[in-house]
């Protein structure tokens, strides 16, 4: 069983299994799907990267200028 969404992410039962509690799940099915889809988007598609820069002497000179 799988369900496709409009964000190029396919959520399979195995993907949403961690959101189930035992043989049942709390809350409505759509909200669980939304949560799994959201996590998939964050982890697998759109990345948020912080690039910390240790300035070299040239950078420091530029910044001061």
């Amino acid at each position, binding site marked *: 069983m799988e369900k496709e969404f409009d964000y190029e992410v396919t959520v399979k039962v195995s993907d949403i299994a961690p959101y189930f509690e035992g043989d049942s799940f709390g809350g409505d099915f759509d909200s669980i799907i939304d949560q799994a889809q959201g996590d998939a988007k964050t982890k697998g598609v759109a990345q948020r990267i912080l690039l910390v*820069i240790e300035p070299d002497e040239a950078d420091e000179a*530029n*910044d001061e200028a």
Partner: protein
Amino acid sequence: MDNGLDPLRVYVQKSCPDKLDNVAFVTLRDKMKASPIGSIIDGQPRAFVDALKLLDHWKDGDVDLGKPADWGPDTILVVDSLTFLSDAAFAFRLPLVPRSKDGNFDARMVYKDAQDAVANVLGLLTGEAFRTNVIVTAHIRYQTNPDGTMKGYPTSVGSALNAEIPRYFNSSALCLTQPGGKRTIQTIGTGLVDLKNPAAFKMAAQLPLETGLADFFKTVRS
């Protein structure tokens, strides 16, 4: 926010000139002028507000690229740099702080307002509704923590926000200069800088600066 686009242009022209049109950029800096008390902003500070407008809807003259949040996973929004964006936030909040009759004000209010403004921007860029890749660069600042340890954090407004900034991101890497002058991207934390990524077991510890971010994306998506 940074006047440093020349290396990007030169690199794209050298390695993939046909992709040059894929890069859209706007440089936002508040105009400065000399004064008896040093350099001050010439007129009203606009850089931070203009940045917010672009992050909501990218429109630069005739170029209308729509909402960055909707660009999608094949596009990267780069904020270069958070350090200067934070300076712009401080400059934007400074004239808005309440002052006494003799013009005095509590500078802590400006710092707090500017920190909140920067935190809101980070919340926007890393929120669920923002469906585009985001890279935020920041210069490092070494701070002593309350427990006496020293750590390097991204530079923002003041020091209180800096340690919280990495929490907004699912990946953080460090651009540093190796002995001999070669610059690389490090993905494994050092004693002074905590780093992370969602593919830590597959990610190379060091990546070349020229292609490192491409490799980074390839690895976390594999």
